[in-house]
């Protein structure tokens, strides 16, 4: 590497480090103050205490929000897994021209600002007199999480080695058996990672939930209501909880993805060896 490239690399590395500080330090500060012993949200830091955790976990409204959020996230992940896998399989395995239109519909939710998804869903539900409830929140979350799952599932299915499915069909497996015994096991870790992503999207969702929640509450709605009334470290506690769950799931999804990717690379290499 030339001296010049070295300088560019150093400058770029410093800039990237600053950007990482900008991205991560505010989140770290939120987590830090969740452990603050005083109600103050600013330095100097007066000492560690778990009092805000006790306060929050003792709060009835919080516990309800937590259970609702976990229930919704789990249901969203399950729904998205079934719908999304079917959609991605259908789109990648049919030669039909309609598949393009399908892809456009499946990605529509991320091209539209969530504000419009929220208000449109609200008026449509009211139009047919559906009461707002956890179910209507679930409908909203599934719409939003769907494209993320679909994109990942589609890439995973497209990258599969076609010979394996063909071999299964030649050996007399029905399409369903071939899918269950040959296709699914190969992509399952990635799909599980993508479902974790859907879980995260649901857990953090606020913009659409706000419109279709009726009298129900979720963790982001709980944060929202506290933001308007009491600014104290209890908000940091709920935020830190959300970030922790998200981080754990993200690491899980990341590891699943890396493992699948490495396995695929190894298989590609061994196939290449076999051919040569």
């Amino acid at each position, binding site marked *: 590497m030339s001296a010049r490239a070295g300088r*560019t*690399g150093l400058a*770029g*590395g410093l*800039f*990237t480090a600053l*950007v*990482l500080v900008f*991205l991560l330090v505010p*989140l770290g*500060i*939120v987590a830090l103050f969740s452990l603050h012993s005083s109600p103050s*949200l600013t330095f100097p830091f007066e000492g560690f205490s778990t009092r805000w955790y006790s306060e929050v976990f003792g709060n009835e409204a919080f516990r309800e929000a937590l259970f609702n959020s976990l229930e919704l996230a789990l249901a969203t992940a399950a729904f998205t897994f079934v719908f999304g896998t*079917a*959609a*991605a399989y*259908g789109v*990648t395995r*049919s*030669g039909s021209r309609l598949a393009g239109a*399908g*892809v456009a*519909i499946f990605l529509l*939710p991320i091209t*539209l600002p*969530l*504000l*419009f998804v929220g*208000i*449109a*869903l609200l*008026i*449509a539900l009211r139009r047919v007199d559906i009461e707002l409830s956890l179910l209507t929140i679930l409908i909203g979350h599934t719409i939003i999480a*769907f494209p993320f799952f*679909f994109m*990942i599932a589609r*890439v995973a*299915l*497209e*990258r599969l*080695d*076609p010979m394996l499915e063909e071999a299964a069909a030649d050996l007399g497996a029905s*399409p369903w058996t071939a899918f269950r015994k040959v296709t699914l096991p190969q992509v399952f870790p990635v799909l599980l990672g*993508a479902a974790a992503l859907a879980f*995260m999207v649901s857990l*953090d969702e606020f913009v659409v939930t706000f419109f279709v929640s009726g009298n129900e509450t979720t963790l*982001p709605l709980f*944060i929202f209501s506290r*933001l308007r009334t009491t*600014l104290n470290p209890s908000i940091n506690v709920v935020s830190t909880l*959300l*970030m922790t769950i*998200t*981080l754990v799931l*993200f690491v899980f*999804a*990341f590891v699943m*993805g890396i493992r699948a*990717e490495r396995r695929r*690379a190894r298989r590609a290499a061994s196939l290449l060896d076999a051919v040569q």
Partner: protein
Amino acid sequence: MSSSASAPIEPPSVDPMYPGAPPDLPPAEARSAAGPKNRRTLAIAAPAAGYLILFLVVPVVTLLAYSVLTAGFFTVSGPLTLDNYKQALESDLTWQLGRNSLIVGGLTAAISVLIAVPVAYWLRYHAGRWQLAVMFLVAVSMFASYLVRIYAWRTILGTNGVLNTALIDLGLIDHPSSLFIFNQAAIVIALVHISVPYVVLVMFAAFRPIEPRYLEAARDLGGGTVQRWRRVVLPLIAGPAISSFIFIFVLASADYVTPQFLGGPGDAMLGVNIAAEFTASGNWAMGAALSGIMLAAYALCFAVAAIGLRLAGLSKIRWTT
């Protein structure tokens, strides 16, 4: 490697979880043939398509229909009318909020792209063994909750916030300054914080097919830094950069929460008003008309960008991955 010099550049598709995946794929033409083809297989995708049509496409059409109906309180009725649009477009408030949305959206998008391009460039060509770790940190920050970020910036920028106390401790100011919060800059900072990770991942995907040897070739042929960027790098990344710009512009300009917590009284945006029409004010027809205006403005942006890129002879924008 997955692409050759003549291949069209990859769309700004990124696998949000595995951006660092080794590019060891066979060419796209070979890959898309994966598995036995069967037209009927598409039927398996029908339930999901039906779901999105029922709960997204039909509602959006309903929303647009409401914009030309007569307003009631939390309801609409016939006859058809264009009054809502007329009223919305004649109101000074609409234009003021629209200008705020445009400024916040444009600044957020421009700053995010300007920050993300050097980061993605460094990640692609210079990061070496740091690549996966940095990518992981960027992606982690992408999944932090939207409200948590707004809250974080509120505690940092607030009058008694972290920034003020730090500046006082450093002796740079005497009293807490209220200059950091409740203005457009605070809104833009929070929205940039939300947007940068997306753009970094998209731009990294854009740099991925540009192999270092292309840049070396340009240098060997006598191109200076400026010329290399102008003739080689920019044409290859312009498509993804512009589509990220538009994506972030739309996301930021339609925001309705950040202005409520970080903006001042004069910094409301169109989205805030639309949200209010559907909740507190109950004027659905007006909210729908404002939504129609915003959607039309976005469609215009897409069209201008697509035509502009085509006229410039650059890769056309790809909206899907």
